[in-house]
């Protein structure tokens, strides 16, 4: 049998903890971890673009938010949508939007790409913000969670928070595994090659535009999956879910964890949301309510993280193991 690497063992241990969590945790924590895992899927989808293909998108929330709106439209008032129909529909809509936007934005690169993705996401934001059909600036409620019925038989119900938790956990593992396989395939090698040197990939005969577009659409579809479950859990969608603060914070998750690794994106999602909660719990000092102004500390944290943690939290671990190995190398040399 192949020996398991330490990283894999840690990963499996984390998975075991996550699988056992509902057995001992209160409802609040189960729901919190559901939310974190949804954001982890979202972060992984962005990591596919930022960390692997080298495309820094600042408009990724557009696909996340759109899928939420699709769920809201698919569930007319007080009536639940069917999961097996509305989930693929939502993901397809996000994918279609990603195809449309991607075909345009991938004509640019570098700084332009960042600005243009932001601008197009903002266009989608205004589409929902300024028009009535999506509830305008107020957003709309998703009154009932989607039902997972196949011809009358219901394998699980999302109204139950533990069921919801396990559905999301299974999806997280599936998305992680699928992306791992994708990245290990020739396709994965090509997109990493594009990040490192696009000209070289072109001269090798790869049509890099197509590869980038496929990545962009795939990332959009996965962001849609996350957005669908976020809307189902929260029961509410508003233009803010497509806004650029959402795009910024998911980008922060990817960087914080350490981009270019899927585990980094997941780690980043956990770290960011737990940090956010911690900051919202800050005490009141004198006349100043620190918890109300938690974003001040979040901003400061982001600035410091960029300056001090260039390789994210995972980079911290690698640094530690490098330091530990040093004496051995010195002896060998």
């Amino acid at each position, binding site marked *: 049998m192949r020996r398991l690497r330490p990283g894999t063992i840690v990963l499996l241990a984390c998975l075991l903890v996550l699988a056992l969590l509902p057995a001992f945790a209160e409802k609040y924590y189960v729901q919190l971890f559901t939310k974190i895992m949804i954001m982890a899927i979202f972060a992984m989808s962005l990591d596919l673009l930022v960390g692997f293909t080298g495309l820094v998108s600042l408009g990724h929330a557009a696909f996340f938010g759109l899928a939420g709106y699709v769920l809201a439209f698919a569930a007319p008032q007080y009536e639940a949508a069917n999961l097996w129909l509305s989930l693929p529909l939502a993901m397809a809509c996000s994918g279609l939007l990603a195809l449309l936007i991607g075909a345009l*934005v991938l004509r*640019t690169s570098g*700084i332009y790409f960042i600005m243009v993705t932001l601008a197009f996401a903002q*266009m989608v934001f205004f589409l929902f913000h300024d028009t009535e059909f999506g509830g305008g600036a107020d957003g709309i409620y998703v009154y009932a969670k989607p039902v997972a019925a196949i011809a009358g038989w219901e394998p699980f119900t999302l109204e139950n928070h533990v069921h919801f938790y396990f559905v999301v956990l299974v999806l997280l593992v599936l998305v992680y595994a699928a992306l791992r396989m994708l990245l290990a395939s020739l396709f994965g090698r090509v997109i990493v090659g594009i990040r490192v040197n696009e000209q070289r990939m072109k001269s090798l005969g790869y049509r890099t535009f197509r590869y980038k577009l496929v990545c962009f659409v795939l990332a959009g579809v996965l962001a849609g999956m996350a957005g669908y479950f976020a809307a189902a859990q929260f029961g509410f969608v508003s233009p803010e879910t497509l806004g650029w603060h959402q795009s*910024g914070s998911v980008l922060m998750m990817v960087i914080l964890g350490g981009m270019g690794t899927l585990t980094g994106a997941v780690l980043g999602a956990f770290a960011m949301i737990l940090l956010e909660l911690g900051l919202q719990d800050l005490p009141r000092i004198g006349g100043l309510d620190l918890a109300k102004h938690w974003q001040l500390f979040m901003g400061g944290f*982001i*600035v410091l993280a960029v300056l001090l943690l260039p390789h994210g939290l995972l980079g911290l671990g690698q640094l530690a193991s490098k330091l530990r190995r040093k004496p051995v190398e010195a002896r060998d040399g």
Partner: protein
Amino acid sequence: MDANTFLIQILNGIQYGLLLFLVASGLTLILGIMGIINLAHGTFYMVGAYLAFSLSQYFGSLWLAMAGGVVIAVAIGLVLEWLLISRLYHRDHLYQVLLTYGLILMFEELRSVVFGDDVHGVAVPEFLRASIPLTETLSYPVYRLWMSAVCLVLAVGMYFLIQKTRLGMIIRAGAANREMVQSLGININLLYRLVFALGVALAAFAGMIAAPVASVFPGMGNQVLIICFVVVVIGGIGSVKGALLAAILIGLVDTFGKVITLEFGGVQLLPQLSGMMVYVLMAVVLLARPEGLFGKRT
């Protein structure tokens, strides 16, 4: 739409465009010369507006407030470049995005701590309070004309600075080849610091003169930032001339998008979707010229 309304909308569009130009020109210079993507640029616009609001109350005069505000804005620009931005020159754009995003959160929250979350107004200075009557019912405020004039003067001044002075020559050379300029004995770090401070001052000044007509409110900077990205994309990165043309174009498109009624198949498109118009324009430009109207083809 009669001729007078048309004239008013043209003036409004140009005035809005010129205001955008002030913010976008700093953004495009910082991008083109320093290679820094600065998300916090819109925040400086907001800082300017809040400075105008607080200082005009303190001094009792908008003019003194503007003078003091520009000094403070330059100081903010110098300190930020020295403390944070200068560490980003050799880093990927991604980190520039994140750091400046962090700055937005901090500035926005500091604003909330100091000024609260209410909407404030700033009074138009006494002698600009008049309106020019066009017809019996329509008139055009002098302050808006004054705004356009000031922006135009600044635009000409910037053209002169960049094209005709020694400093401008160094700035242009620095954009073309940083190492070469440095090896000719020019302190490029100081030059970058000045360019950044100039950009901050321009954005803040735009916020100050806009404060009396646009009011002062939370989040006002982000709205401007994203429109200015569109301006820079359409005009071409680093091109001040492109920024001017694109800004006026967008000012007009945005203004007319809000007053023209357009229906298609019974569905009202404009002004309902006027917020999207500028992005549609950007999409068209991207299809035709991905590098922008005045950008360098790569």
